[in-house]
């Protein structure tokens, strides 16, 4: 990575970091932290879906696993939240590798892969809802004990900075991937798997690395979610809502680009918040707007925006 690769990321982090100095209202900070968590989950999806072209509909499996492991390690085993956080990420990554191994080894692609990941997430949701370990339908409450040593903070701004830090790390990881051999091979697999094989790319190994990394990043979002809201149940942790959020943001912001998921996440959540305040709480209206936006994005993919501008300039 060169300075030119890192500069935009540093700039983004610097600008975003000063936000809590101006915005002190708790509702707004709450919104900002939640958006960052979604952005993080979306960045995870972007590694596998955007760069690898393997569209998962079940990233909730990774989000939820990390969230539950973080919470359970703390509540049941008295583990300090920081190692529990790392444990959650590791568990998500492992689940990713297992799901990846089972589906990629049998050659699942495209919609079949999407359906299988969705099925895994749903199975986890049902199991978490029934198991005693996860608190069943009642969910898990992490005990309130506000101490920085306990990964709980007085001010929401602290959480905002932690979330921003994780998003920045994910941006750097994505950029490093883009510049690495693994990244080049991953994109090659996305573009044309048999051509990649012929050039010596071990497609299975590349896809497994991608899903493990992807699951770890989305897992970080889940673990952070648990730590921030201190409450989990199966429909939150393994719900389809997070799978959809994780894939919608990169697709709208530009899948397979470093800033796509963050851009998409901010636009989506900004927009939904904006419509909510503008038209009151008509249920489902924000979803209608999501839908319209999605149609527009599919028709005019952001990745092609530079091309569209060139075409438009050339035509004049």
């Amino acid at each position, binding site marked *: 990575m060169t300075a030119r690769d890192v500069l935009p990321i540093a700039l983004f982090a610097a600008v975003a970091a000063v936000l809590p100095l101006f915005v002190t209202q708790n509702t707004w900070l709450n919104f900002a932290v939640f958006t960052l968590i979604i952005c993080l989950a979306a960045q995870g999806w972007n590694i596998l879906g955007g760069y690898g072209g393997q569209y998962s509909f079940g990233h909730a499996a990774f989000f939820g696993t990390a969230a539950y492991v973080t919470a359970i390690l703390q509540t049941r085993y008295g583990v300090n939240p920081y190692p529990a956080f790392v444990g959650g990420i590791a568990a998500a990554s492992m689940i990713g590798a297992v799901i990846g191994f089972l589906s990629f080894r049998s050659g699942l692609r495209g919609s079949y892969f999407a359906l299988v990941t969705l099925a895994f997430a749903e199975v986890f949701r049902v199991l978490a809802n029934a198991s005693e370990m996860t608190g069943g339908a009642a969910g898990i409450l992490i005990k309130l004990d506000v101490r920085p040593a306990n990964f709980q903070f007085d001010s929401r701004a602290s959480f905002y900075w932690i979330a921003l830090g994780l998003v920045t790390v994910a941006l750097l990881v994505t950029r490093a991937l883009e*510049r*690495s*051999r693994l990244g*080049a*091979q991953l*994109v*090659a697999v996305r*573009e*044309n798997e*048999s*051509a*990649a*094989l*012929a*050039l*010596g*790319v*071990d*497609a299975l190994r590349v896809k497994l690395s991608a899903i493990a990394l992807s699951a770890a990043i989305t897992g970080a979002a889940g673990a952070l979610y648990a730590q921030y809201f201190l409450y989990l149940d199966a429909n939150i942790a393994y719900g389809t809502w997070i799978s959809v959020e994780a894939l919608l943001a990169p697709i709208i912001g530009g899948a397979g680009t470093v800033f796509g998921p963050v851009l998409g996440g901010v636009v989506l959540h900004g927009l939904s918040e904006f419509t909510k305040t503008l038209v009151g709480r008509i249920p489902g209206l924000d979803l209608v707007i999501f839908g319209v936006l999605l149609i527009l994005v599919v028709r005019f993919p952001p990745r092609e925006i530079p091309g569209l501008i060139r075409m438009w300039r050339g035509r004049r």
Partner: protein
Amino acid sequence: MIEPDPAFLSVHSVSKRFGGLLAVGDASFTVKEGSITGLIGPNGAGKTTLFAIVSGFEKPTTGRVLWRGEEITGRPPHRLAQDGIARTFQIVQPFAGLSVRENIAVGAFLRHRRRADALAMAEQVADRVGLAAELDKPAAALTVAGRKRVELAKALATQPKLLLLDEVLAGLNPSEVRDIVPVVRAIRDSGITVFMIEHVMQAVMNLCEAVHVLAQGRIIAGGTPAEVVRDPAVIEAYLGHGAATRLQASDDRRAGRPEGLNRPPEGSSHA
């Protein structure tokens, strides 16, 4: 037939069956190190299937493939690429969203871990195949001839010992063929053995030292290009049953009339 050369590529009694269809039946041949060897045959003869078997994309139903004395039958393509066997595809397979440079770099990454090294290698290969001016264009924006060169460059960037070319000249106009023939020869001269499926006979005659002929899944002839095109079995495979005798008869008739010698023989435009 050419003497077996166990030191390089040899195919022993390979058959491939797809359900009731025998695509390749009991094919045996060798490719000599340092040669340009051709594989010709009418459409549907099983050439591409045979290539797929050698490059690891298909497992043969029976038979063995030996590479420098080692059995490689059914070894997956990415491992064969690591071992030094690279291939191109008849229908070009560019990474459409990537630039020419990035396309070639995917191949170069096989032997170069660092991005800078892979990109440098890509530029060097692009130079060899005449793509230096197109490096930053998206692969999808190239002409057919350009995409064929990208296909060639990607395979070359893996630094193979054996290069399998599946109809790199198909779809090119005669002047484009003339441009790319020296490129193929230069590849061989750099020490890479070339094994090519080709329909453009002018190029086969020009380039190949040895040719194997496949018809209906069977190897029916082998030898130098000049020997092979005179082989009655080959002529029949291309032009139909009895064609060889008819051609021979018309040649004999012409031989009786001195002025006939200056006329091109009938059917030569089809061969």
